[in-house]
């Protein structure tokens, strides 16, 4: 119970950032970069093992943007010039220019590489069809819905290939899902195409946005687990769940990924105990709020260490106290 994991991305070490810049300038070959990506992946798998993370990720050292990565590896997408997302930050927003196809698996090779490095389960990491659609321009499909369902079908093939390769956990991230509450049904339908028939434990991660607009429909998301940010909303979300039955497992973001500060394990343990007054411990997975790629390597390690340490403390009090322990936990809030 209370398995620890991370949401997906982990920071790239400086040597990898420099290498990626060199490749862009044509000063380094793709093969040389690949070697460094493997080195960084090896390091992150080892670090997660040493920290005691239960469900490991490959850290996405070979991905840039979570949507652009898939757009670059699927047919039917073109790359755009820069578009601003906020402040002085820009990105290349993919353009759907033709029929969306998948000529070969996109993530399976990296998943297999990472799983080969550890006995712990490695989570397969996909970007969801609704998010890929919403974060792309669409010139080829008549409607947003048509584009979304076309993407769903290729992501489904990818999920099946991951499962065939041995993935026990498959996460399909949908951070855009709360953007347009009126399209929530479309997002659910598309995610259903991806997860239908999978035996792996399926997860979706949702962040940013008007949670209350979509909250009532969370139960209908066709996945086993929903992973949410709790820390950066001061665990206010708990009150939302306290009042309702929730049939799914929950991924509990317990450390904020937008701050440099490493949270104190005692404080996080206390928040986790508070969460266990709402969720049953066997239905709870513990992780940071979101991908850690925007933090420094040291900050990311510090935050993951806090996740593991806080979870250990709560597990210890749960198993020491049995039912009594749970009462103590409730009392601590």
């Amino acid at each position: 119970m209370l398995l620890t994991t991370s949401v997906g991305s982990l920071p790239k070490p400086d040597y990898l950032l420099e290498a990626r810049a060199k490749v862009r300038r044509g000063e380094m070959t793709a093969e040389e970069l690949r070697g460094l990506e493997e080195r960084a992946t090896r390091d992150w798998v080892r670090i997660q093992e040493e920290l005691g993370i239960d469900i490991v990720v490959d850290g996405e050292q070979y991905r840039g943007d979570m949507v652009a990565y898939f757009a670059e590896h699927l047919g039917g997408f073109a790359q755009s010039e820069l578009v601003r997302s906020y402040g002085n930050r820009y990105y290349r927003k993919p353009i759907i220019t033709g029929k969306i196809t998948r000529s070969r698996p996109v993530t399976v090779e990296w998943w297999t590489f990472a799983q080969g490095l550890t006995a712990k389960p490695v989570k397969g990491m996909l970007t969801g069809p609704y998010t890929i659609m919403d974060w792309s321009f669409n010139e080829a499909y008549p409607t947003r819905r048509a584009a979304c369902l076309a993407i769903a079908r290729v992501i489904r093939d990818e999920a099946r290939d991951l499962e065939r390769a041995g993935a026990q956990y498959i996460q399909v991230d949908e951070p855009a899902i709360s953007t347009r509450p009126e399209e929530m049904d479309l997002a659910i339908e598309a995610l259903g195409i991806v997860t239908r028939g999978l035996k792996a434990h399926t997860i979706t991660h949702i962040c940013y946005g008007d949670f209350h607009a979509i909250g009532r429909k969370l139960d209908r998301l066709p996945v086993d687990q929903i992973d949410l940010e709790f820390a950066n909303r001061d665990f206010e979300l708990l009150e939302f769940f306290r009042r309702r039955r929730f049939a799914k497992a929950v991924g509990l973001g317990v450390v904020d990924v937008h701050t440099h500060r490493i949270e104190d394990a005692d404080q996080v343990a206390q928040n986790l105990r508070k969460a266990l007054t709402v969720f049953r411990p066997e239905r709870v997975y513990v992780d940071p709020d979101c991908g850690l790629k925007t933090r420094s390597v040291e900050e990311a390690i510090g935050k993951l260490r806090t996740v593991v340490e806080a979870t250990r403390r709560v597990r210890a009090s749960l198993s020491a106290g049995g039912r009594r322990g749970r009462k103590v936990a409730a009392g601590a809030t």
Partner: protein
Amino acid sequence: MITTVIGSYPKVAKDTYSTKLIGTIARWQRGEATGEQMESVARDITNAVIAEQEAAGIELVTDGQIRWEDLVTPFAGKLDGIEINGLTRWFNNNVYYRRPVVRGEPTRRGPVLVEALRFAKSCTERPVKAVLPGPYTFATVSEDRHFRSPRRFVRRMAELLNEEAQALAAAGAAMVQFDEPAIGFGKTDMKLAAEGLAIAAQGVKAKTAVATYFGSLNGLFDALMRTPVDVVGIDVVSDPTSLRSLSRARITKELGIGCVDGRNTKLETVTQLHAVFNALRRRVPLDRVYVSPNCGLEFLPHPQALAKLRRLGEAAASYRATRSANR
């Protein structure tokens, strides 16, 4: 029919002006470039952006909002009583803005956007439109820890925006436009929005306009027609039915018609745009219409933004030519 833009324009363009702004701002933030260096780059880009609008056939231009982080920060950041907080999603876009938080009585120390307007005017002979956030939208996207009353917040913002609008008009803005994407996006307190616009537009010695986008004016159009602004702008891309519903409306003002999709790269055809103009012509004299993209062009990469502006200019020119030939 006058061609115009809503406001923003891509800040970087590999193919024409430059991507220099990104690096310059980054160096300025690290203290490695001076404010003047950054301003000088931004002015060069503003100049280029205005020239691109002119060449594309845009008659009422804006400065492209090259120094704007988002719709609210430039104005909010210069007021006392307001601090700029964390990133929040900008309506239903994968674009973020910094949320203003009102902690004390907002006060305006002096003109905020007047210098930028003067510079834009120095770049062109054409009339220049100044853009401000509308009071209702400003309040909607902010966090109020001071007034604890939407109405008091909207009214106070409207007063401050009115001071700025008057200053912009005095400095030679041909039009002052209040952007109100919050009108028609989700539940709208139209009475309050109208009250805010009335205060904001009062006594402004230039044409005033309200621009709405991202949502639907279904049911709100008549109320906007009763506000004391000269031009009511609607987004007929986000809500294609709004063009048809104009036939039932009483149109007592000039209209702004956002008819080119500023959020998708797919390029409209001249035929499509002519169809919009034809539909309009049946409802309102075309000399009372401004045509533009449905929202700022910054959601698009530069090549597509420019292509869309050119297409709008081209469609308007050919439409006028056929109309006068048929006369």
